């Protein structure tokens, strides 16, 4: 069986670093791993998706509709966009932060109301105010690692393995802050 984790957010929210920490973790468990990333134009404040797939042998680097075990979402609207990628009993972990896309800023479209409730109706959904926790850890930029902590609680890997993966991936300068962000995410209990 292939495990599938999808990370979605807005360009600049650190989906790349998150998928790389996950990749390092999964590699340390002796698994085959494939990650798919987004670079270039789409990174500039647009919707960004990275895929993490692992198992005995992984072929495609892409997660498709109905395949994801987890969707880790750094923003509400991006979470909503990714819901259909979850398998029936998959789990959505969503940072409740809202970032308005340009069509909303220009007034061409409205930011949808009641997204969280609609998502909760469709699938198992954990809502997290990751922004507050990230600020508590030292920077709004750590939202991604807070959410990784929330994911860690759902998965079977040891905290040691997660910590090790963070240590080998995150630059020294930001390590303490990210370790704190991870710990806050890990402690977070929405249920």
């Amino acid at each position, binding site marked *: 069986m292939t495990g599938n984790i999808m990370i979605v957010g807005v360009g*600049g929210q650190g989906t790349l670093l998150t998928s790389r920490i996950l990749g390092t973790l999964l590699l340390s468990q002796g698994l085959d791993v494939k*990650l798919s990333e987004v670079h*270039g134009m789409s990174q500039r404040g647009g919707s960004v998706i990275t895929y993490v797939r692992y198992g005995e042998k992984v072929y495609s680097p892409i997660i498709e509709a*109905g*395949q994801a075990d987890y969707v880790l979402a750094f923003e509400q609207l991006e979470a909503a966009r990714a819901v259909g990628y979850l398998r029936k009993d998959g789990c959505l972990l969503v940072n409740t932060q809202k970032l308005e896309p340009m069509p909303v800023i220009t007034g061409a479209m409205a930011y949808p109301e009641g997204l969280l409730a609609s998502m909760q109706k469709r699938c198992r959904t954990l809502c997290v105010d990751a922004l507050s926790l990230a600020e508590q850890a030292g920077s709004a930029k750590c939202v991604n690692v807070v959410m990784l902590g929330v994911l860690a609680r759902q998965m079977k890997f040891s905290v040691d393995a997660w910590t090790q993966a963070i240590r080998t991936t995150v630059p020294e300068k930001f390590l303490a802050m990210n370790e704190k962000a991870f710990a806050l995410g890990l402690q977070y209990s929405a249920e």
Partner: protein
Amino acid sequence: MKELLLGNAAVARGAYEAGVRVVSSYPGTPSTEITENMVRYADVDVEWAPNEKVAAEVAIGASLANARAMSCMKHVGLNVMADPVFTASYLAPPGGLVFCVADDPGMHSSQNEQDSRHYARASKILMLEPSDAAECKAFTKEAFSLSETFHTPVFVRLSTRVSHSQALVSLEEPEVRQPAPYVKDATRVAVPVNSRKMHIAVEKRLEDLRAFAEDCALNRVERHGSRIGVITSGISYMYAREALGDAVDYLKLGMVYPLPSRLIQDFAKGLDKVYVIEELDPYLEEHCRTLGIPVIGKEAFSLIGEYNADMIAQAVLGKPLAKEKTEPMEALPVRPPVMCAGCPHRGVFYVLHKMGLHVAGDIGCYTLGANAPLNSMDFNVCMGASIGTAFGMVKAQGRAFGQKVVSVIGDSTFIHSGITGLIDIVYNRGNNTVLILDNSTTGMTGHQDNPTTGKTIRGVPTKQVDLELLCRAIGVDRISIVDPFQVKELEKTLREELQADEPSVIIVQRPCALLKGVRYEGRYQVTDDCRRCGQCMKLGCPAITRKDGIVSISPIQCIGCGLCANVCPFGAIVKEGSR
């Protein structure tokens, strides 16, 4: 040892292990990280060239002087380097010579969706196509060796999902190679008398390569005892494996030019149905058809965009990949890419929009100026084209049109191929106005240095092209330098330069907000003086939003550039703590 590597990083690793000595490229998504990763290897002479043509020429020269050399580019970059590449095919220089080209099916970051495999056939150059990072390394290594064995340059063709996916790669020790001393060989002067002989050798080489393709390990048959066969290559193989597993037989082609006709015929023999699964053009499909094999190709699969496993499962097995899925949510607002908060380009497009000018666009972050609410780009074509196209428009519409159109081009793109367009305008007595958006970097591809930044790819200080002196040297007499955040001054300068009946260049200078060392102090906020005129909303800044008519600036998104304060007619936007 195994490491998780990006496809592009694996290409770099493969070249390193093959003992590559020279790598010269121009950045272009999705190929950029290959060359960026070469920096990890101290012994390799790696550089950013001003454009792909020069990059290819440097690699060809290094190969002529017996070194293993590589040049990497995106698909449209191959168009720029095509001229030297086609003749390099004839010259067959002695050092292993690899051109690594990354296509972009689905156009994640490109202006078109061309299929570079046609180039292999047109230039008669061997082409390999890896399916993941492990193959990226292995095939790149193999490419150098094949180049020297068969006296040919070799293409390694990637696509976005191969370039930008990570997979496990086994690392091996690099070969240590010293280029043999250079000896002149005048038969390599490509004049007709020599080229006629070289062409004969090229055709002979292709015969040898066709024979090689039949048995080489790069092409692989996987039998699962099925009555259905799939012929595929590159990322499509991975999608097919994902979708169809062991339910079909596979012919996975790692070498896509020249193709192994006998192998294909043998594979198809006895099968009830043969599908050809390939993104973009029916390249493999057409070859199969010339062999008389009745394959199923583009009637079942699209010519357009990326493939996925679900689409293949539906077409071949008649059922979706996932049995049950969570119900998707519909009609959500899209989130297109935008200029970042603090982007220096924003001021330029705000002014161009306000003045209602026609804008001939170019390739870079500033292409985002086409999107709402800035909406100020008429079209774009390719790298450097903003200048020549605007000149052509003035020729078509009459000289007075020169007052209504501007060219907008970045610093790196101007050096790449904008300068020649400007020379054309000066030489042929045009009156166009060209804006060079100098943000001190190559932004869109992720901040590479270029000849105007004063640093090499390794960060070593070097000479810096002086854009003003360069324009002056080619005969532009009217040159101004403006800060794009001083919108009034920029507008005034534009008005003056558009009026002038001679070529003008406006160098709009401010560094990219994402560059290290670019720091703005504080954050801005909206005060009670706001009259809700909406002027600031015309900037399209992701930090500025409006709810029920009330404008606010997100303290998380704002980086403190202050452009909004410059455009507010009521002084209602101020720095936090300034009142």
